[in-house]
């Protein structure tokens, strides 16, 4: 028995050694800069933030271990936390539904065009190139009291002003801004997927008398469902992390009506110098993203069709 083990070890060792000879070392050498980068700027900060979430580090001085008290405070005594959580989920759901519906609609519309397809694709993709901060500043000027929207509404004699000062409408303003900036990416993605649907299937269905709606619902949609799934998951993840628009347009206000997890992390960490508490929120955000992504992967079995 023992002999067998040593034998196995003896046999496996040369193989691993061989791997680290010649090519293996060269590969490692070339990968090293990337690996060091990943370790220093990704793995280490992640580990540090886990550790920090159990301390009350104020950025200056040394962190003090406080156990789970950041987490207990977050879930039990922080008066803002559940509002922040609700805002984040609300933003994600509304934004996700609108983004997917609108970008899919645009993609279908663009692919149905006889001329100007490329032009429209570029037009809708352009905002994706613009830095989100710049986009948010422009939209903030449009929505702020006395801004473009207010004067438009005044021209139309509609009693509607100061969207960003309104606790219900401020979030909608943020969502509109995000849609403007974010829709292009999914539109191009879905448009490309639609173009990949074999024309022969659609041709055959048309001959069999399928309506345009049937062709969309029963052929094109199932065939692009993997892309749709990818778009949905990625959009959900980025919208759970929403920060830039809120930082520029509302600073979480009025009241706490637009404060989201991403903004709360920034505010606690870099404005209030509660690094430990901010790290705890970051891990709650991580858990939320993981849970929702897992849910989406579970749900995909019902509606995503890979090439059969």
């Amino acid at each position, binding site marked *: 028995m023992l002999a067998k083990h040593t034998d196995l070890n003896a046999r496996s060792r040369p193989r691993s050694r061989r791997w680290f000879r010649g090519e293996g070392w060269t590969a490692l050498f070339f990968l090293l800069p990337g690996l060091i980068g990943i370790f220093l700027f990704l793995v280490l900060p992640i580990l540090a933030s886990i550790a920090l979430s159990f301390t009350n580090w104020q950025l200056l001085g040394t962190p003090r271990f406080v156990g789970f008290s950041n987490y207990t405070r977050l879930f039990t005594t922080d008066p803002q936390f559940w509002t922040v959580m609700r805002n984040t989920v609300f933003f994600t759901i509304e934004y996700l539904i609108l983004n997917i519906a609108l970008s899919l609609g645009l993609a279908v519309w663009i692919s149905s065009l006889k001329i100007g397809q490329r032009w429209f694709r570029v037009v809708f993709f352009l905002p994706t190139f613009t830095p989100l901060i710049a986009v948010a500043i422009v939209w903030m000027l449009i929505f702020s*009291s006395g801004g473009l929207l207010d004067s438009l509404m005044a021209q139309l004699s509609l009693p509607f002003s*100061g969207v960003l000062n309104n606790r219900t409408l401020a979030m909608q303003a943020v969502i509109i801004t995000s849609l403007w900036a974010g829709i292009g990416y999914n539109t191009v993605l879905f448009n490309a997927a639609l173009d990949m649907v074999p024309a022969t299937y659609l041709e055959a269905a048309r001959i069999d008398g399928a309506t345009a709606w049937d062709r969309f619902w029963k052929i094109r949609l199932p065939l692009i469902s993997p892309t749709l799934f990818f778009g949905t998951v990625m959009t959900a993840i980025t919208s759970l992390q929403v920060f830039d628009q809120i930082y520029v347009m509302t600073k979480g206000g009025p009241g706490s009506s637009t404060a989201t997890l991403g903004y709360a992390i920034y505010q606690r960490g870099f404005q209030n110098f509660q690094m430990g508490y901010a790290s705890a929120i970051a891990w709650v955000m991580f858990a939320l993203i993981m849970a929702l992504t897992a849910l989406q992967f579970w749900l995909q079995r019902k509606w995503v069709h890979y090439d059969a």
Partner: protein
Amino acid sequence: MKHSLIFAAALTASSLFGISAQALDAPVTVTWQMWGEPNDAQLWQQLADLVTQQYPDIKVKLQLSGWTDYWTRLPVLAASGQVADIVSMQSMRMPNFYSILDPLDDYVKKSDVKVADFETSIMSGLSQDGKLYALPYDVGPWMVFYNRDKFAAAGLKEPAKDWTFDDFKTTAKALTKDGTYGYGTQAFDFIAGPVALGAEYFNADNEFDLTNAGFVDAFSKYADLTAKDKLSPVFASASDASAASGRFASGNVAMYIDGPWTLITAQANVNFKIGIAPLPRGSGPSRFITAGSGWGISAASQHKDAAFKALQVLTGPKAAEILGAAGRALPARLAQQTYWYDGAAKNVAGTRDTLQYMFAHTTPFRINEKWNQFENLVMQYVPVALTGDSTPEGVLSDIQSQLP
């Protein structure tokens, strides 16, 4: 014998070397972390050069970053031990950062810096627990900026130095017409305003106590100017201090509250005459809070003595004259304030009188380490009271509940 000879020779050599090293005094580069726009760089560089002129062995290296970046970078640099030798500090942020600075009292005692040369209120603003952590370069109270042309057009008298809140409100009412608001409110008004009315936001233990009757009442007075009397436009949480100054410059609001540090910019942006008045008082005597900024020495600095020499020049009379004459700062040095009054404030009637009255009536600006958090919450929550979505009491208790 031989050994001791060598030893003696070595000793002599080393002592000689020691003496010569002391006499030569190797040049030192002192780093100086400061905020400012790129177009401020020249002014700050001028001050840095002033140090080298006086002490040829000391070179000051300026590290400039934007205002917001500065406060994000400072704690990060401090935490990683890379903070500059000379650190710029604003009085309102001192409670968060004094731990990275060295107390200056001993340095001051040994030097010929006279504490009495500086405005008292800002010296206490840059102190923590009775220890001085920075020497100030500027100082200023919050005060009312007003459009003198609009006052004249409305047939209003110039405000008295001890005008009351009712006077202020009546004036704002008279100025609110033809699409112009009498007053443009900003987040900080809800701190400086109530204090001037005699209210306190702290209890005896220096903890926030926003729901005391006095503060709620004074806060409500300011909120009602917008919510009930419609004498001011609402500001959104996002648009910070600059919202009302822009409206003031374009002539859409006739009065707003700001500090002397903006006077030079305000004048450049307007095509009317500016007047300044103290904040209105309540039923008691006037009282005002002042803020300002200065420079301290990093506790981690390797060149503390050189840094203090540089600091003396940077906050010295010549530097104060340069900053005052350029309009960049109302000098914290009393004797040099005249350069600001005669330069930047030359066209603004009564600046000297008004400010001297205000300095004579200052009250300590009470802050603690949660001050930043409080200011952010004020910016976030006050708009809700201005639109009438919530009552002033509601807003204050919301803010209070979030300040653990």
